[in-house]
């Protein structure tokens, strides 16, 4: 099929093409209006599609999952003077988290009767610290951060002591508030 401009339907105010070429297809006012309306339409379309997409992408920031209280066991499980590793399932997890839903924390029951619950993450760059009861130190295998048994920084690159989880005693059981990965500006 051949292109026959004179048979195309023309808009109001449009002139057909002639031997000298095609004239302006639309009046300037009409073209300006089309330009504005086009830009406005594109803006509306972008907002309509963009807002839900951006909201979806930012949902971990806008609506983070809340930390939850977790039962670490009966208080009698933690004798005075000992620091123990507890392995629990993080209550803040997806059903398909697999083994990554596990978590570890250290519970210290000092001779003075005070309880402390430490996150296992080094405050330097988050590697898992290991407790050595023999020397009363937590050692980090990554860059050699060392902490005393009360969680204070002893040596190495960590900028602060171990992260301490909020905890409480309830009906003879030790509960700790757990969930998010502790980092320097968002400690436990």
């Amino acid at each position, binding site marked *: 099929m051949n292109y026959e401009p004179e048979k195309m339907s023309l808009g109001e105010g449009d002139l057909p093409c002639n031997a000298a070429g095609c004239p302006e297809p639309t009046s300037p006012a009409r073209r300006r209006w089309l330009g504005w309306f086009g830009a406005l339409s594109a803006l509306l379309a972008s907002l309509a599609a963009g807002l839900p997409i951006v909201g979806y992408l930012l949902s971990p920031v806008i609506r983070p999952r809340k930390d939850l209280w977790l039962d670490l066991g009966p208080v009698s499980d933690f004798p005075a003077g000992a620091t123990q590793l507890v392995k629990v399932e993080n209550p803040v997890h997806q059903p398909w988290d697999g083994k990554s839903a596990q978590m570890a924390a250290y519970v210290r029951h000092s001779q003075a009767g005070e309880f402390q619950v430490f996150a296992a993450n080094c405050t330097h760059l988050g590697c898992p610290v290991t407790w*050595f009861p023999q020397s009363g130190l937590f050692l980090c295998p990554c860059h050699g951060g060392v902490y005393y048994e009360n969680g204070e920084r002893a040596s190495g*690159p960590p900028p602060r002591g171990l992260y301490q989880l909020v905890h409480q005693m309830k009906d003879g059981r030790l509960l700790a508030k757990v969930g998010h*990965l502790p980092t320097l500006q968002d400690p436990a």
Partner: protein
Amino acid sequence: MPGRLRQIATWLDSRLGFSDVVLPILRHPAPSGSRWWYVFGSATLTMLVLQIITGICLSLVYVPSAAEAYTSLNYLTYDQSLGWLLRAIHNTAASGMVILMVAHMVQVFLMGSFKYPREMTWVVGVALFVLTLGMAFTGQVLRWDQDSYWGVGVGAAMVGRVPYLGPALVRLLLGGTTIGADTLSRFFTLHVLILPGLLIISLSVHLFLVMRHGVSEPPVAGRLVSPATYDKQYAAVLKRGEPFFPAAVMRDMIFSAWAVIAVIGIAIAVGPKGPALPPDPSLISAEPRPDWYFLSLFALLALCPPNMETAIILIAPVIGLFSMVLVPFVAGKGERSPRRRPVAVLTTLVLLVGYGVLTWLGNSAPWSPQMDAWSGEPVPPRMLARVTPLELQGAVVFQNKTCRNCHALDGSGGRRGPDLTYVASSLDRDELIRQVIQGGGNMPAFGDHLSPSEVTALVAFLQTLRPSDTAPAASAATGPAPPHKGNRP
């Protein structure tokens, strides 16, 4: 029939534009005399193609779910026919791609190929560099094992240091508040959709610019690049050039082919990497190490002064990238030959040697305690050959209090602190007691964890640690120590 076939071929050619568009690109003249220096870029591209093909193959079996990924990796490695080899090739070719990309950048930098008119080719190349390293990091995360899990943790800890935005960025990185299913899913998306998409787009622009400005001619010392004259000079060079296809491309083909053969050979010999232990954060004995690309960063973060650390993590990469982008705008004209550009040559050498040394240090990690040395490395028997019961008790204290995790004896044990084989030659009794009880100089204080009798025994043992023919160290305050046999027979 041949006539009919030719008719079809002519029709296709006229509609697809092969002779009009593609052939001139293939046959465009390239400067002659480039020799073998120019083969690294095309070899990097070849590695990318190999990565795309093996990556697609692996994704046929790999399950990007936190609960299944580890199982499917083990299946790929041990059950899936040739799965181990494809994993090995993907891992080896990743290393190959990074190495060849750096070789390409070094060649372009040293030969001044980034200068007028190829500034934007370099800038897009810097984007490709960043994207390729992004692929390396995200790929490491998909190997959803212990190292991978803690690798993300380290990444989160680094991002978490950004002022104000840290916590929000951590959640964006992890896809939530913990490292888990959402984290793996987004790293999978990054590794197989987002980054490859950006990589292919950037690569297309890069290649388009290579075609638009032509391959740079080998530099000649004294022939300066000036925007006023370069285009004419280059046109003259091209008149003496050779067609890219089939002449210049042959060297690229041969080099790329042998690069692929080397990758397959190494993959067969070395095998796939991991998966190591499962990504279970309650397995507290993990000793995470990054893949080799990032060992230098791992080392830097152990060795830099703590007060500079956040700056090194957050600001240094920005400065580094900015400097790379600025290179062609600062030095876009003038001399191209490395013989007349000592600053460029020295910068390259310092960067490469620095990266190499940091990688080597990251691999040996002398700053990390040896976590099992206290129970796994006995005190060398010759050190106990002629000791008193008190000194022997001290040796037991030395082991049991995990001193050995940071202090080597005769070279075995941790290297976080000094090797104590001859410590009594440099510290006297009082200094040893003070060091043990108060710590200092990066050593924790042990005062709360040692009874006075343990300190006495430990220091008595430490005082035997010196060559047999020398007296123990003494200070003016305490006077010379009583004569005592050393530990060397």
